[in-house]
């Protein structure tokens, strides 16, 4: 057995790895795997799985609360309920620029943002300012009790009025 002429692994030969190199590679490899795992666990830990935030669905009350041709802001839920001659629609009151709460100016008939001066028409279309998009229309419907409901998390692309 000891007279085997085949030489033992030389540390310089390219195909054969020395014991030291093997263990260094193992060590660095396992640290790398552990680092990736830690990053994944860290990301999962930092993302909350349950949010104790208000529901996106808002009860805006009975339609006859709103006067004809009016724009009503609820600052708590950040929505406008707009009543036109034909019907109702809901508009997000959160400025599409940087998220400030806009306000309706009844004397000018426009919606204005106090932070950076964006201005919108009553149907959300931008007049001027840094806002990149119009104020989105939100899905609105009547429930069985005859109340207007608005889903704040659901912007609708096609402008549809709720007729009562």
């Amino acid at each position, binding site marked *: 057995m000891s007279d085997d002429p085949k030489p033992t692994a030389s540390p310089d030969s390219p195909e054969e790895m020395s014991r030291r190199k093997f263990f260094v590679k193992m060590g660095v490899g396992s640290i790398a795997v552990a680092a990736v795992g830690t990053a994944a666990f860290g*990301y999962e830990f*930092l*993302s*909350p799985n349950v*949010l*104790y*935030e208000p529901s996106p669905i808002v009860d805006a009350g009975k339609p006859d609360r709103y006067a004809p041709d009016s724009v009503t802001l609820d600052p708590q839920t950040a929505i406008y309920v707009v009543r036109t001659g034909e019907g109702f629609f809901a508009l997000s009151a959160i400025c599409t*620029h*940087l*998220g*400030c709460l806009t306000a309706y100016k009844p004397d000018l008939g426009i919606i204005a943002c106090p*932070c950076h001066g964006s201005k919108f028409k009553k149907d959300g279309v931008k007049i001027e300012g840094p806002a990149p998009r119009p104020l989105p229309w939100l899905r609105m419907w009547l429930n069985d009790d005859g109340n207007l409901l608005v889903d704040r998390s659901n912007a609708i692309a096609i402008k549809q009025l709720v007729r009562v």
Partner: protein
Amino acid sequence: MAKTIDHLVGQVRENRVWRSIFRSGTGDSNLHRALFVQQNVFLHLFSIKARKRTLEFSATWYLGALTFGTFLILVITGVLLMLYYHPSVPQAYADMKDLQFVVSSGVFLRNLHRWSAHAMVFLVFAHMFKVFYRGAYRPPREFNWIIGVVLLLVTLLLSYTGYLLPWDQLAFWAVTVGSNIASAVPVMGSKIRFLLLGGTAVNANALLRFYVLHCVILPLFAVIFIAVHFWRIRKDGGIYPGESSAEGGAK
């Protein structure tokens, strides 16, 4: 009288307990002074010797040291403010008002914290301008400039996270706007905002996250980078003496 005090001081410094703490021993020789700096865990970040020119006001305007001074004030007043502050909604606002109107010296500590924070941001910029216009950022000090930029970012993040803690209208809307700016980052913007706020809106989770960042994580980073920043001054051959002075090799 002076002799008696000198004698007493001498006795204390010869004392066994004193000698077990300060091993450099007594004496006014250069060796003892050097050993005193070298053997102190805090002072050993600095050189045991400095060029006289670099200690003059005109060399640095002491802007770095003043920045560190405001940082120390912020740590001390901040820790004291933490004793009366709950990072919860809406208690945080009431605690801030209590600090202003109910707690003894509360308004003094809060204002000291606030003004020192403003001063620190100003001094960091002034320090960077001074270093830049003297050319003190050039090799061998280029890496210390990078650490300085990291410290600038830590300072600004400390300012930003501290801004939310009073939980008033100004804080709420400033952080609403600020976190929406973070969401402008390409691809992962809204994810960054979600992780920063711990939710989709500036709410109780956001207040708690900003509190932990402001009181623990960011100060820890600041202390570590400040220590490296000071140590690098020594390693890069001391404070930059100026264009006219010939420089020795890096030590």
